[in-house]
């Protein structure tokens, strides 16, 4: 709620205070004056205390749609409680430096960044945006949890979020690397998690080629976007990766940057800009670009999809649905593919439930993330479809954890490009 809206909403309070007796008025005025002294920490802090208070005192209006709460069925995962603990850590009511309070610190990382909470929030913020400000203070105090330190260490050592530089595996995975000549139309920015799905990357390259696009991938120079460091709020590493990527992207000469990873899109755009490192390029998700190519007639549907791939449901990646606010590109592409039977899950588009694999939760509590993935898989199974289509490597990774070993043959999680290529 903006300042103007807030003032308007509470304009009725002023006449009440004016009408009150002198003693009451004196108490109220004192309380108003002392709000910061009473309830804000002393000294410098990064935490968004105002909104931590708003969130922790809210009766949890988003609780029914919080993925971690639904997965754990534990009140301690409720958004308002996370904000409450964030506030207590900030105020020192719970001493963050006391090793006995480690679980309270861990709670600040048990969020999947899905931002379902924002849809229902009476204050229009997401809980992760608050938790990140608490993480800033924890990092400043040297209290970053070990599992986060490990991710930062991997980033600095391998330039990716893996124990090794996953981009270097392209040859063994049969992925073609296209070096930039500095004059590309498009730079295909492959996400490091996408490298775990070589068939997806190969499909994307083939689709771009079929459309006659001049593009490069620069896999020999490629590094992580730095998204994990932004999640953890280790801003030194985050900015280092932002600078590296800006240089790499600008060296291609491409006007349009496309990525197969919605997390990369968020990082390359909003997050870099907030960190003061703006890339002056059009940066879009690959489904948005494919949609454009289809509209322009550069991609034509010439083949029939094999029968076993025809009954599908859609898992909207939350970053495309809620951050890019685009739920139509995926559907537009799928609707153009002949012979498909598309069955929407109950929770779809901007109301999609998370795969469990975004944010920091899967490092802080892998079992929790898996339970969230299982919940989402159950929702997808309820559609009766056997093919689950998504457009995010993290979703595809998370959802795979949600399928029981005995059902791996029955259900197939595919990236939209893997289906699209079958029809071109």
């Amino acid at each position, binding site marked *: 709620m903006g300042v103007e809206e807030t003032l308007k909403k509470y304009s*009725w309070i002023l006449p009440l205070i004016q009408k009150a007796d002198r003693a009451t008025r004196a108490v109220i005025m004192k*309380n108003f004056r002392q709000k910061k002294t009473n309830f804000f920490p002393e000294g410098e802090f990064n935490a968004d205390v105002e909104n931590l208070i708003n969130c922790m*005192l809210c*009766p*949890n209006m988003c*609780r029914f749609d919080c993925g971690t709460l639904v997965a754990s069925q534990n009140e301690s995962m409720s958004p308002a409680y996370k904000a409450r603990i964030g506030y207590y850590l900030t105020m020192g009511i*719970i001493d963050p430096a006391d090793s006995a309070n480690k679980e309270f610190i861990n709670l600040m990382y048990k969020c999947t960044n899905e931002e379902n909470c924002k849809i229902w929030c009476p204050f229009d913020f997401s809980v992760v945006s608050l938790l990140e400000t608490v993480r800033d203070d924890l990092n400043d105090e040297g209290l970053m949890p070990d599992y986060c330190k490990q991710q930062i260490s991997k980033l600095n050592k391998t330039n990716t979020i893996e124990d090794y530089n996953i981009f270097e595996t392209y040859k063994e995975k049969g992925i073609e690397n296209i070096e930039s000549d500095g004059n590309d139309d498009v730079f295909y920015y492959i996400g490091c998690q996408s490298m775990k799905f070589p068939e997806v990357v190969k499909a994307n390259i083939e689709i771009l080629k079929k459309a006659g696009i001049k593009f490069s991938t620069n896999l020999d120079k490629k590094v992580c976007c730095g998204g994990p460091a932004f999640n953890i709020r280790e801003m030194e590493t985050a900015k280092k990766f932002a600078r590296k990527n800006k240089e790499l992207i600008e060296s291609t000469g491409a006007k349009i940057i496309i990525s197969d990873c919605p997390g990369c899109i968020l990082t390359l755009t909003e997050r870099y800009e907030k960190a003061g490192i703006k890339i002056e390029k059009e940066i879009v998700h690959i489904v948005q670009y494919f949609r454009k190519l289809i509209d322009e007639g550069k991609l034509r549907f010439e083949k029939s999809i094999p029968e076993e791939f025809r009954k599908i449901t859609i898992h909207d990646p939350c970053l495309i649905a809620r951050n890019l606010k685009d739920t139509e590109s995926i559907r537009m592409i799928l609707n153009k593919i002949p012979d498909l039977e598309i069955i929407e899950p109950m929770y779809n588009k901007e109301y999609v439930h998370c795969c469990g694999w975004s944010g920091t939760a899967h490092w802080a509590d892998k079992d929790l993330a898996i339970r969230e993935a299982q919940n989402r898989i159950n929702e997808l199974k309820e559609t009766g479809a056997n093919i689950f289509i998504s457009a995010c490597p993290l979703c595809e990774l998370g959802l795979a954890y949600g399928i029981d070993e005995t059902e791996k043959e029955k259900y197939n999680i595919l990236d939209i490009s893997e289906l699209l290529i079958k029809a071109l």
Partner: protein
Amino acid sequence: MDFKEFELIYKDNRCEIKDKQKIESKLKEIVGENNISTNDVDILAYSKDSTLIGMNWTIQGKIAGLPDFITWPETVEQISEILKLANKEKIPIIPFGEGSGVVGGAIAIYGGIIIDMKKFNKILKINDKNLTVTAQTGINGMNLERILNSKGYTTGHIPQSLYISSLGGWIAHRAAGQFSTKYGKIEDIVLGMEVVLPQGEIINFKTIARASTGPQLDKLFIGGEGTLGIVTKATLKIWPYPAKRTLISYVFPSIEDSFEAIRQILREQIYPAVVRIYDQFETMRHFPDIDKAKDKVMVVFICEGNSKLVDLEESITREKSEKNSGVDCGEHPVEHWLESRFRITETSSMPPYKIVFDTIEVASLWENASDIYHSVLKSMKQLQGVIMITAHVSHFYPNGVGIYFSFGGVPTKEQSDLEFYQKCWNTVVKAVLDAGGSIAHHHGIGINRAHWMESEWGTSMNTLKEIKKLLDPNDILNPGKVYVDTWKGGEK
């Protein structure tokens, strides 16, 4: 952590558990390793409910009650076994749904074992022919309603707490939704239940539209507030999702005019789903942009259901409103209410200024409604520190109403916020009783109203206490509520 950093509000008469490890291992045997916790991070999470004074405590680093164990049973048999253990060891049990109660019903005031019902979250059956849904009672209200909506049904039970409350909480606290004038209250909606009694016995009340099979024992558990048994499963009435919805609003010169219009509407057996009266102050607070509403009483109506019936309801609603000096305000006020009804920000905005804020809903026959309204306002205005006392009226019957007061203020002199809060509560409740009303309409008794139960019930309270003793001889199920004056009367 020993939680010494936090001031504990309810700290008297805590149960002494001599061998906590033994109890923990027995609970593990019953529910499994992953369904019990004594971790600080979990214990603190279950230290409060949504009682509004609790929000002031939260920001001040105080906690209401401190449980010893949190459990998440997955079967009714596990609940039964926990209760048997609790009886043997004389440990309090506190059933917990979504923690949205506002009278302290889920606070572990003596410590003990929380039974969190969240894993009882499944819809078991939807029966189109009978128009029923059977669900486990830990299910969140919104999750129940939106699944029903997706299949073309509604329960019609839409409380403001829909997003944050559970089916079990509705039943335990005898809840009412905002659409209740048409669809009824929870006791009208529940057709069958499974209940675990305090000593572990599992009983069932079979689902039936209506029967003449002796006293309605099942009703004892609707409003039992988790003191007489834990309801684990319920079958509810459902309705086809309404085909038509008409939004109507009128402003009236006085609350009496609005009462009279609505009384006459209901006398004609016309039941708009939503009827809400806002007194002058609430009208100014919620509808400041509507010129016609200045210094008036706003009433919003929603008629819904079969299209022909809705048209008839609309016609009679308009006729009676206009006959009682109502002026048509169009759809906008109703749209505004629909858009804003779940945007609750007041609970967050008051505590940073140490303002004590709460709502108290009470019930009345038509003949006392106006007296109760004016009497409460008059009494509260005389109380030092109170800066706001207003009301809206949102539940209606052919015979009476439910009035919902809101108050805000600050403790002056040497009062604590709890003492001031108790004084406000007691002032409202006393004025209601003196004017012939009933002390609660749909939030229940919990801690906040327990000391008024004798005044409300008279000698029949003895019978209720005897029933409690019979079912729960060791007083292990949600103790310190309903029958016990935990506030020690507060400052009457």
